[in-house]
């Protein structure tokens, strides 16, 4: 395997991805990511000098519309899906300390 994923890299990716992995999951993730990157490295065989990266297949420009409210008050229905709510709002864990 050409790509060796270090413990630090997996820790870092865990922070970026907001995932908490068990030790066993981390080992598996190191292996999986290494073999995926080996596979992706195949792209290096292609000369892409001067090629523009294509994020969208059609030329898309910004799509604007007037900022007009078209839906009604759906607060209760939307909050119906909230894991926790309080006084008509989403309830979240304390965000700031002090």
């Amino acid at each position: 395997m050409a790509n060796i994923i270090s413990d630090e890299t997996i820790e870092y990716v865990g922070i970026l991805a907001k995932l908490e992995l068990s030790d066993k999951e981390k080992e598996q993730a190191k292996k999986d990511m290494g073999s995926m990157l080996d596979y992706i490295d195949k792209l290096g065989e292609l000369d892409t000098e001067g090629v523009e990266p294509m994020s969208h297949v059609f030329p898309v420009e910004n799509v604007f519309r007037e900022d007009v409210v078209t839906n009604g008050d759906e607060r209760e229905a939307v909050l119906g899906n909230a894991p926790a709510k309080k006084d008509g709002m989403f309830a979240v864990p304390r965000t700031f300390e002090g």
Partner: protein
Amino acid sequence: MEILNYTAVELAGKIKAKEVTVREAVEAVFARIEEQEKEYHCYVTLDKENALKQAEAVQAKVDAGELTGPLAGVPVAIKDNMCTEGMLTTCSSKILGNFIPTFSAEAVRNLEKAGVVILGKTNMDEFAMGSTTETSAYGVTKNPWNTEHVPGGSSGGSAAAVAGNECFFALGSDTGGSIRQPAGFCGVVGMKPTYGTVSRYGLIAYGSSLDQIGPLCKDVTDCAAILEAISTHDTKDSTSVKRQDTDFMSALIDDVKGMRIGIPRNYLGEGLDPEVRDAVLGAAEVLKEKGAVVEEFDFSLVEYAIPAYYTIAAAEASSNLERFDGIKYGYRTEEFEGLHQMYKKTRSEGFGPEVKRRIMLGSFVLSSGYYDAYYLKALKVKALIKKAFDEAFAKYDVILGPVAPTTAPKLGESLSDPIRMYLGDIYTISVNLAGLPGICLPCGKDSKGLPIGLQLIGDCFQEKKLIQTAYTYEQARGRFGSAKQTAESGVR
């Protein structure tokens, strides 16, 4: 003829002619569901009571002459990654195990306007990440042709529901082949339209630049009728394309004289099951006899599509799935200390292994220091693939090939080796990268009795050429039959 054997368009005709009521159709489907769903497990959610209520309302509109279209009164299934107002929408994930949308996806609304009755939500690979429907958090779906085999994925529940007559048609979504491949494995017709043709509003995003909703159905006529109903310009989806040519049923023409069909030689090489190869080339021969100009050509870059796709799809997934944070909807972990641990535990407990694998890969390829080497490189390769297609479509109207290298694998054989599973997407994936339309329809069975899928690929906005070619082949082939009939009569 038994109600369940009608195609969607035939059924709507019978309903219009007052030979069948909408309620009878819904009840016939539920009778079949009750008989076999325990074994097949096509659905995550079913709502018979609501379906019967919709049936009454639709019947009233049909009787009043308000609903006259080719899908009025037809019972359908929706893949569980499309929002349905008031009906559980899980994406086959634990993290959305209790999510009840407050709105419906635009494609679903378009079908409702056409007068369909929604039966329930079909099983899928979790967040559409997988090729077998085995990554679902709610159990596997079995292939109605042989229950030891997978139905394909990620729209496996939709494909199996159509093949098993547990609905008259279904909607699926296709990011790298997720409509076409399960259609092939289950012997039904499946189509991924040109990117932007069907609104993605209300489709729970996986790879937004690749995702597209499309039909899984019994024949090409149904496919054209459904596509016509769901293809609308939508200001709620900024990538929605305004098209004037969405009268797809006008392309149901039994004629391919002069149609230029190219078969990529690279699609017929190593890794392709000889039985699949023979069936696909047999279909090409049929089209040739009908007057098409068929030839093989060299199509480069095939082997680069999969690594480019998995880089781009994983990157977009890692970004799209950030929204599942345990705040606004879905699962939240029970015990935690502080906000960040809540996020991490919620996501780690809520997502399955394949989803985590792709989120991590995506986070990595987008991270500082690796972005250029992986993500930008993949976008450049995408540009090269698009160019290769442009060159091919300068010579051909339609590209013909297999939809997958094999027929449906056995349950439990695919997930242990992700890269091998990803390789199964080799013929479908580049179509998504280039935003093209592709259709899959059955062209034979292998020695195990499993269906073989023929894939036709068109240039952007050329769905009509695909429909015409597929329809012509289908007319020559004759009715393919359903899994149930084959199983019962012992025909192989």
